[in-house]
């Protein structure tokens, strides 16, 4: 019933928001009978200072509220209410921008490009959820992030994934984060925003391609909980790391675990770790051997990763518009080929080919070093994932996996233990 209400309110909101959107045209849009579709504005209008501050204050308020619901009230209903608010405000009303997920790129660009001044609101949206995560776990993911909230609304029939499959798919966000950092650092593109599957839905202006991607993600969300958060979100990767050292992470039981196993299958993202018996403990000798082996494997993986990815640095650089244009110009034959819009635009810019080639060569160099680092990073992630699989962790109780758990609070109501 709650699900149905959530979906109904989402649809109602869509209609209301669409009406507002439709009223913003001064002249009626011309109807192009040739099938031409007008390009849509991809960014919402910049926010005035005071409203940016309101956004930040609302972010803090929503984070505080949801943290209180999870940690003090242990209320799933409270999480759902906050989720709906975030979906409405940060999703549909703020049109998904500024969002913490995309703010990673603003931060990276600000670090690598001294000419770029990061908006304070973007910085706040990056830092504040990290601070909350450091103290309370991923309460931001629980219901403040509109991307997570929209997927949660559609989760109707959760099915469990095999552990190995989760691990394999779980590598994708790391690669995505690496690519996003590389492209932001080189000033190429903000790919997280470009491929945000839900932002086009929030803004009612998605291209068919992005709408199809968004719709497919929502369809998957019906069965696999939060597929974007778990298997794509680059900010989730950072929150995952920070959450592992969080001071007061959500605990399934409010007092002592009685091992009743009621919560065992309650987590839709399989983020509950089962107790591990003492007899499974690894002996010291074998642990030392494993450590030495990993100490050799991980650097090797990093070097191999760096070498492999650096061999593809030219392909990676092709995403950069200048490199792509230089490449196109290099292979352009006016006698046999039709001039593209980009070449035509370049011709009229007054810039020389040599200038473009020099700029392009500079960018390629950045991509060469960047792809070594990216490859090394991917190798490190593979290595550490391998290490994580082989590492023994002693556990007496049913516990939330501090990294993976998004603090959605579903498991809390399964625990029969009363608060002490």
């Amino acid at each position, binding site marked *: 019933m709650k699900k149905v209400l959530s979906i109904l309110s989402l649809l109602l909101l869509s209609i209301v928001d669409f009406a507002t959107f439709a009223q913003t045209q001064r*002249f*009626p849009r*011309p*109807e*192009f*009978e*040739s099938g*031409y579709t007008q*390009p849509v504005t991809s960014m919402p209008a910049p926010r005035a200072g005071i409203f940016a501050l309101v956004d930040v204050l609302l972010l803090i308020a929503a984070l505080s509220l949801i943290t209180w619901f999870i940690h003090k009230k242990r209320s799933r209903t409270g999480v759902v209410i906050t989720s709906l608010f975030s979906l409405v405000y940060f999703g549909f009303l703020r049109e998904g921008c500024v969002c913490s997920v995309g703010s990673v790129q603003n931060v990276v660009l600000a670090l690598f490009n001294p000419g770029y001044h990061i908006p304070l609101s973007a910085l706040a949206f990056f830092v504040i959820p990290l601070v909350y995560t450091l103290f309370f776990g991923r309460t931001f993911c629980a219901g403040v992030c509109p991307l997570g909230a929209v997927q949660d609304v559609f989760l109707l*029939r959760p*099915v*469990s*994934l095999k552990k190995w*499959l989760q691990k394999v*798919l779980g590598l*994708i966000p790391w690669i995505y984060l690496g690519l996003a950092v590389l492209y932001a650092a080189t000033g190429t593109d903000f*790919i997280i925003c*470009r*491929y945000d*599957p839900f932002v086009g839905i929030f803004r009612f202006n998605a291209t068919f*391609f992005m709408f199809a*991607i968004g719709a*497919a*993600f929502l*369809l*998957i969300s019906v*069965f*696999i909980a939060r*597929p974007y958060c778990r*298997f*794509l979100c680059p900010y989730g990767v950072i929150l995952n790391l920070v959450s592992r050292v969080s001071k007061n992470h959500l605990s399934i039981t409010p007092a002592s675990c009685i091992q009743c196993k009621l919560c065992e299958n309650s987590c839709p993202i399989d983020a509950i770790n089962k107790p591990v018996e003492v007899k499974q403990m690894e002996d010291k000798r074998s642990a030392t051997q494993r450590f030495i082996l990993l100490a050799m494997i991980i650097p090797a993986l990093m070097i191999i990763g760096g070498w492999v990815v650096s061999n593809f640095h030219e*392909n*990676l650089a*092709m*995403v950069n518009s200048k490199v*792509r244009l230089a490449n*196109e110009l290099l292979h352009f034959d006016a006698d046999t*080929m*039709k001039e*593209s*819009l*980009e*070449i035509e635009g370049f011709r009229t810019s007054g810039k020389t080919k040599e200038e473009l080639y020099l700029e392009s060569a500079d960018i390629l160099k950045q991509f060469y070093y960047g792809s070594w680092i990216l490859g090394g990073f991917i190798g490190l992630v593979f290595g550490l994932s391998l290490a994580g699989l082989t590492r023994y962790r002693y556990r007496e109780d049913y516990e939330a996996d501090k990294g993976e758990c998004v603090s959605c609070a579903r498991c809390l109501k399964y625990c029969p233990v009363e608060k002490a």
Partner: protein
Amino acid sequence: MRNKLILWFSVLLLVVLIAFMAKDLFTSNDPTDKNVYEYDLNSLREVDSKLVSHKESKQIKINADEIHAIATDQNDQIYVGTDKNVIVLDAEGALIRSLKLRQPASCLTVMDNGNIVVGMSTRVDIRKPDGSLRNSFVVKGERTYITSIAVQDENIFIADAGQKIIHHFDMDGNKIKEIGGENQEEGIKGFVIPSPFFDLLIGRQGELWAVNPGRHAFEAYNFEGQQISNWERTSMSVEGFSGCCNPSNIAMLSDGSFVTAEKGLERIKIHLPSGDFKSVVAAPELFEEGTIGIDLAVDSNDRILVLDPVKGLIRIFEAK
């Protein structure tokens, strides 16, 4: 079993999605792809034959290097303003006389008493029916460019596309007032005129009609300069006007309907006094692509005279 199937389907879909996104990121579009931003008007040039109400009944060839303006008088004589003279023809196109001009004509109109008022860049000449000069005056202003003249009794209204204003003069060349300038108090938004096409005519009740081409609108004013009526039709379909500034020229039929000429999509249409589309007089296929400056006149039999400056013709259209 069913859950397993759903699970693997979902995982497969997820992997496919990510693969699609990666493909989109790393592969560029084929440079030979069609230009998606191309302003393709070809399909709009086609007009349903059921909408066409007139047929072309006559063509009159004009011997001049450039032809710019057309008007008719009460006897259905035809006046054509060229780059050098005003040519006067009878209703069948036979030459009556030719009046030499000091500058190329940009517009002209004929008064009830037979006087010919010719607009030429910044100057207005009033010629008697025999061709002698009755008066001549200059419209002041650095950006003045006269594109249309309408006359009612002793009032001359001059459309100035350069200054985006209508000048109200008397026959002696004394300026009375300006009409149509932006006036927020009276709710007049002003004329939007991106190109030198700004036409006027006097309506059946003696009101002054002006095209506001940048807004695809018609605006009616009384002689005090107050706006008394307006209508606007923006549309890429045949029911309205499109582009930066249309219609470029207008005329009026005896029932008060407007005849409109457009550029970009070269076509002649009739709009009812309410502004609603009525019919097509001439479809774009009848004109050379890129024809601009199609002037219009209507005679006492509601024949529509279309000045085709590219073909150098007066083309007469009559109702089917």
